[in-house]
């Protein structure tokens, strides 16, 4: 079993731009895996399309690099098919909030036991700098030459209101906290969501654009208080990082499916011959 973060490296070398925030996420993820001593053959990392979508190949694990925007339903299928697997979904802000935005609420409300890392760089990096759903109003990008006229989405607010049971924000500039949050998220039984502020130095903002805005969530914040979590998320004075919301008691989807199977089996265990007989 791998013991160090380095031993969780995949066979492919990262292709990200120098200084990309995604390097910090990859390192934090590998450190977290090492801390948990997770068996790589029981780990599946699914990804969407975009810079962050290349993550599975860089980690020692089973990976699934699928199509743009569909990482959440794909990861859900993997987890439900084999609940013994640890499943992580990785995607960007465009992948998860634009093209795949329709899946986010449903992944949250189903509470499938997967960890979703949204690597948010406020831009479309792989396609070279078009605005994303988290790009700021008025920002000039390659597809908004006269300034962005669309208001940005806040994935933390969305996740909390969609009934996600673990909602956190991390920042590539604070890697130790990110490692800890990833571990907590993976330990959470249910759907865990981490928005990672992962700077795109090539097309969006550098680390020091974010650093002054970020602020640790106060230690006295009670993460089981959903209203307080919303208030923190809505605070425009600071970009809070840490655990906003945590509901450890909600049954995860596999538990609910097991209960459903139990209920269904009260009508008799499945048997093809007796089913055929019903149609005679």
């Amino acid at each position, binding site marked *: 079993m791998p013991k160090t973060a380095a031993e969780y490296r995949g066979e492919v070398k990262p292709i990200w731009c120098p200084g990309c925030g995604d390097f910090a996420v990859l390192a934090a993820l590998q450190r977290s895996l090492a801390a948990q001593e997770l068996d790589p053959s029981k780990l599946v990392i699914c990804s969407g399309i975009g810079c962050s979508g290349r993550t599975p190949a860089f980690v020692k694990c089973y990976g699934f690099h699928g199509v743009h925007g569909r990482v959440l339903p794909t990861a859900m*299928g*993997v987890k439900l098919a084999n609940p013994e697997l640890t499943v992580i979904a990785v995607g960007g802000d465009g992948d998860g909030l634009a093209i795949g935005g329709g899946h986010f609420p449903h992944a949250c409300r189903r509470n499938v036991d997967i960890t979703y890392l949204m690597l948010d760089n406020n831009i479309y990096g792989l396609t070279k700098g078009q605005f994303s759903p988290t790009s700021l109003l008025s920002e000039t990008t390659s597809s908004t030459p006269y300034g962005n006229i669309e208001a940005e989405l806040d994935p933390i607010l969305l996740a909390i209101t969609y009934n996600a049971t673990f909602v956190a924000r991390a920042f590539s500039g604070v890697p130790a906290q990110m490692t800890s949050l990833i571990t907590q998220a993976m330990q959470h039984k249910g759907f865990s969501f981490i928005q990672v502020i992962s700077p795109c130095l090539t097309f969006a903002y550098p680390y020091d654009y974010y650093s002054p805005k970020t602020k640790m969530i106060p230690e006295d914040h009670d993460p089981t208080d959903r209203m307080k979590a919303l208030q923190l998320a809505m605070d425009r004075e600071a970009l809070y990082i840490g655990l906003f919301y945590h509901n450890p008691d909600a049954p995860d989807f596999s538990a609910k499916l097991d209960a459903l199977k139990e209920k269904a089996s009260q009508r008799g265990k499945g048997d093809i011959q007796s089913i055929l007989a019903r149609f005679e």
Partner: protein
Amino acid sequence: MAKDIVVRVAGEGGEGVISTGELLTKALARSSLRIFAFQTYPAEIKGGPAMFQVRAAPHELFSHGEQADVLVAFNAEAWELHHTILKPDGVVLYDPAEMPSIDGRVASYAVPLSEISAKQIGVKLTKNVVALGAIGKLVGLPLEPLVSVIQDKWGRKGEGVVAKNLEALRAGYNYIAEHVPAPIYSIPESKEGRWLVLKGNQAIAIGATAAGCRYYAGYPITPASDILEWMAANLPRFDGIVLQTEDEIAALASCIGASFAGKKAMTATSGPGISLMVELIGLASMAEIPVVIVDAQRGGPSTGMPTKTEQGDLGLAVFGSHGDAPRIVLAPANVEDCLFTTIQAFNLAEKYQLPVIILTDQYLAQRTESIPYPDLDSVEIVNRKTPTPEDILDGYKRYKITEDGVSPMALPGMPDALYVADGLEHDEWGHPNLTPANHRRMSQKRFRKLEFASRESGFVRIYGSPEASIGVVGWGSTFGPIREAVEEANKRGVRVAALHTNMVYPLPEKELSEFLAPLKSVIVPELNYTGQFAVLLKSRFCKDFHQLNKVEGLPFSSVEILEKILEVANA
């Protein structure tokens, strides 16, 4: 050949037309008759005209019949809409509360359905069961099979409900006994054969379950929703998982994820849904993941005609993807096929590790047939090839180049066989690789699977005259009317041969080329405007193809096909 009988029940949607027809169908099948039934639903949620037609005979049937021996008109509108279907010696049953008399020259019996159910039985809702009793007696059914279908239908609701319905049944039955001199049909005495009475959609769901499908995800859509509902009720009892997802994209994405993790997975949809799935079909093809997709076709494009039948999705099923994305497309010809073709679909998906699309249509998905009791124990179930210890000894190649294009597929959880399933072009190890030689080699690898699949046996029916110079090539649900037309033409001395294929892509080239070789003219009947299957045939074979295309949202009648055969024969 012994005589058949055709009964059409028509009325307002929601007043029991369909349930009367379904119960009658089952009772006829329990009297050892083969049956073929078809229904039309109104597009309205409640109300609007509904129709159920059942044909029964002591031999196999290929269509629901062109004309009716019995028309049951629940209201005046039903009579107006359907009276032309009656044979000259046909009989109409009607409710005098709905219309005072039948204006026409046909034999008619006024059966006071509303009055009997309201006054004698005291439950207005039993009107359709009164009608069932009346029809049953009229066509010569004994009471016993009618009683048994009622007991099965309402048994769970308790003895009181069963008793009320039996009372209604007998009231209708006795009314006819008293007012009609003799039944118009005599049920043959044969007690041979055990039949199942199934709809196409039910047969597909049962076939999938028998094939080992344990993950189903879908989004409601007409005319495929029955499969989702059947699976939701039954698959959890097999320790399976059923999800109604937020859209068809999520349905297929989650099926692909589940199959990647080792479960046999299926989704079912109709045209608008499979349009949304196209990108993921390419992913399953590229990442080489087994998955089964059912498309119960309806009139298209766009929202089209949701409750009407068409074969217009063939082109999309065969070619729908950017890039070249090999897949297999199957099309069952009847309800029995729906069961076995679905098992074959899973077997092929597992064997070749690719998406398999099953094309049915509203005429097949929602029609009812009696099928011979299936012997599922003797059906082979294929599971995907997984790596042996030798395969992983020197580094596991998930996409290893092999003679038949199939590489051993590791499942997450297996030690030492880690890989990334990738929609990006990749090399044998699964590592992204966009070099010219690699893309060529991997495209060849993926397409080699189709060369092997096209030689799979058990997908072609050939019948008709061996000395024919005219042939008919068909696919999918048009089998019945084509078969009837070919038989009739041969009876009339026009020699015609027919080939019907359940595998429409890749084409079964050997069988097709041998079949086509001696023929002068080939008719290709299809329920679409452009002749999508004819286009496929023309791309591989040089023949004098005659397209017969119908786009009315309705199935072919055998007469339409016969006329085309005669036209080509006389040309």
